[in-house]
């Protein structure tokens, strides 16, 4: 599916670039609340951070050559699991968060195991079917548990955490931003480390030619399933955060529309690098917020931007600088 790319940074050669990338991400995350405390900007920034966890984990799955359209469903599973654990079972958010993530990961085993028997467009459509089943399930079944079409309401904010004799609360927008920032930085560190490990190398080999990888003794299915389960774990964490920061859940929060946006962010950014989804998510969210001024023309312009970006930068935005540099050297055309 992806054109073959050179391995950008083999492990052992240099961990400088990934560490610099993580430091840059951390600096940006820390700097933002120093620049503004405006609640609109904090809201957008928190959403970006949550979406970053989702797109970076989606890209982990894409890095083994598979676009999982059910990724958002595992966010939903994590969200509903955490909300119900807190409201029905009565445990604290801090216990519910890891349990919700594990629930999402455990459900990823059978669903991923089933879907990964096929590849390419078949996989794409099967995972899409799964996501619709999960969404319709939340919407139509066990209405007194999941809230049905009117949604699951009354989810409390994350409870306070004791911290050296004082209580850390998570009620204001700034505090929720800080919580999501911490969750994201841990997630990003794990995913970047994974990318520059043996796992990342094998994933890249599978993406470039899974048949060849298979003949070289790689258990392709196991790698794909691992990426699926780890990605779903991260999505479950994001879902638990979403449940307790929004405090209301609707099945449509985990439907086709938000899923499609995640794919847009990931692919526009570029799936060849672990930083592609970061570039895509940040730039496309800002572009989307700016385009909001255009009202009726918003989706029209957004659609045109998508088409042109994909025709001019088929490998995503992060591949663009290298492409431009090559063009300057050899003078080939950038035209599609």
């Amino acid at each position: 599916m992806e054109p073959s790319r050179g391995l950008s940074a083999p492990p052992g050669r240099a961990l400088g670039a990934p560490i610099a990338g993580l430091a840059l991400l951390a600096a940006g995350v820390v700097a933002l609340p120093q620049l503004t405390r405006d609640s609109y900007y904090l809201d957008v920034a928190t959403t970006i951070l949550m979406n970053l966890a989702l797109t970076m984990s989606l890209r982990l799955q894409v890095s083994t050559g598979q676009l999982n359209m059910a990724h958002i469903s595992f966010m939903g599973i994590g969200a509903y699991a955490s909300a119900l654990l807190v409201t029905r079972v009565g445990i604290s958010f801090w216990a519910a968060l890891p349990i919700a993530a594990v629930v999402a990961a455990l459900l990823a085993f059978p669903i991923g195991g089933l879907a990964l028997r096929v590849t390419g467009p078949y996989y794409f459509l099967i995972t899409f079917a799964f996501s619709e089943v999960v969404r319709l399930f939340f919407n139509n079944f066990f209405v007194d548990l999941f809230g049905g079409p009117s949604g699951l309401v009354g989810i409390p904010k994350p409870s306070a955490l004791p911290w050296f004799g004082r209580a850390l609360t998570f009620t204001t927008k700034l505090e929720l931003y800080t919580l999501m920032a911490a969750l994201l930085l841990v997630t990003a560190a794990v995913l970047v480390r994974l990318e520059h490990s043996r796992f990342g190398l094998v994933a890249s080999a599978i993406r470039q030619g899974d048949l060849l990888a298979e003949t070289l003794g790689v258990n392709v299915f196991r790698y794909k399933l691992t990426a699926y389960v780890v990605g779903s774990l991260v999505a479950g964490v994001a879902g638990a955060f979403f449940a307790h920061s929004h405090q209301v859940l609707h099945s449509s929060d985990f439907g086709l529309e938000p899923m499609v946006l995640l794919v847009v962010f990931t692919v526009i950014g570029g799936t060849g690098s672990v930083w592609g989804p970061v570039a895509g998510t940040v730039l496309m969210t800002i572009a989307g917020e700016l385009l909001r001024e255009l009202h009726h023309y918003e989706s029209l312009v957004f659609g045109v931007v998508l088409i042109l970006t994909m025709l001019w930068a088929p490998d995503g935005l992060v591949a663009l600088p290298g492409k431009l540099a090559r063009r300057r050297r050899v003078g080939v055309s950038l035209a599609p």
Partner: protein
Amino acid sequence: MSIDLLVQALLNGFGLAMVYVLVALGLTLIFSILEIINFAHGEFYMLGGYVTYYVFAVFGVNYFATLGFAILAVGLAGVVAERLIFRYLRGKTLNAFIVSLGLLWVMQASAQLSFGVLDKPVPSAFSGIVRAFGLVISVERLVVSLSAIVLIAALYLFLRWSRPGRAMRAVAQDADAAALQGVDIELVSALGFGIGCALAGGAGGLLAPVFAVSPAMGALPVVKAFIIIIIGGMGSLPGAVVGGLLLGSVEGLGSLFMGSAAVNVLGFLVVILVLLVRPRGLFGGA
């Protein structure tokens, strides 16, 4: 429960399913030739609906002439989309997904801006009901289903016997080998994409009087079409017909026992059951 009721439910299910098969056939034809999934397919269906609204409901042209015009106009729009955009995306499933999504937004927004967001009702071209063997079916539904079957048969004959149809099947089998035999890939791609969209446009024209016309009308048939082609196997034309019949009968029978929301889940459950047994669909190749 009487057997009449069951047959009636099946008949109701089949009627609409045949139109969704048209949408699915277009989608699967485009997939087999260009190896891309066109998410904006429902928007070509919507275009067919609007052509029908303006030509038939506003200008009062004969219904079947309108239908022919809708098929041609939407087919032409498909050729334009292929030449401008999709020909650069052959085989790039992921990129084509994003681009077709962009096209979906562009077409929906354009429809909202030019036609308004409100539903536009299209009057029925045929009234009355037919009674036979204790079954009741409206003339309109009968005409819609029969027209869909005629279009499916026409597509079959075209692909089976005509020269461009054979070229299309050759490209679907192996594009490189077809090119070596002198098939003009560019021409076949444009024609195939156009025919695929024309089928969606025809379906939109057929269902315009049944449902109202609106910018978002393409969402439902395209989801049904996806279910049908996953069941039948991507790229398989007989698979699309069998998948449509299966979905129609399951939904028709299901509506006897449960509400419409639960019936929607049923379609996806059939998908998962089929895929458990045959991961590439009933007629999917290796």
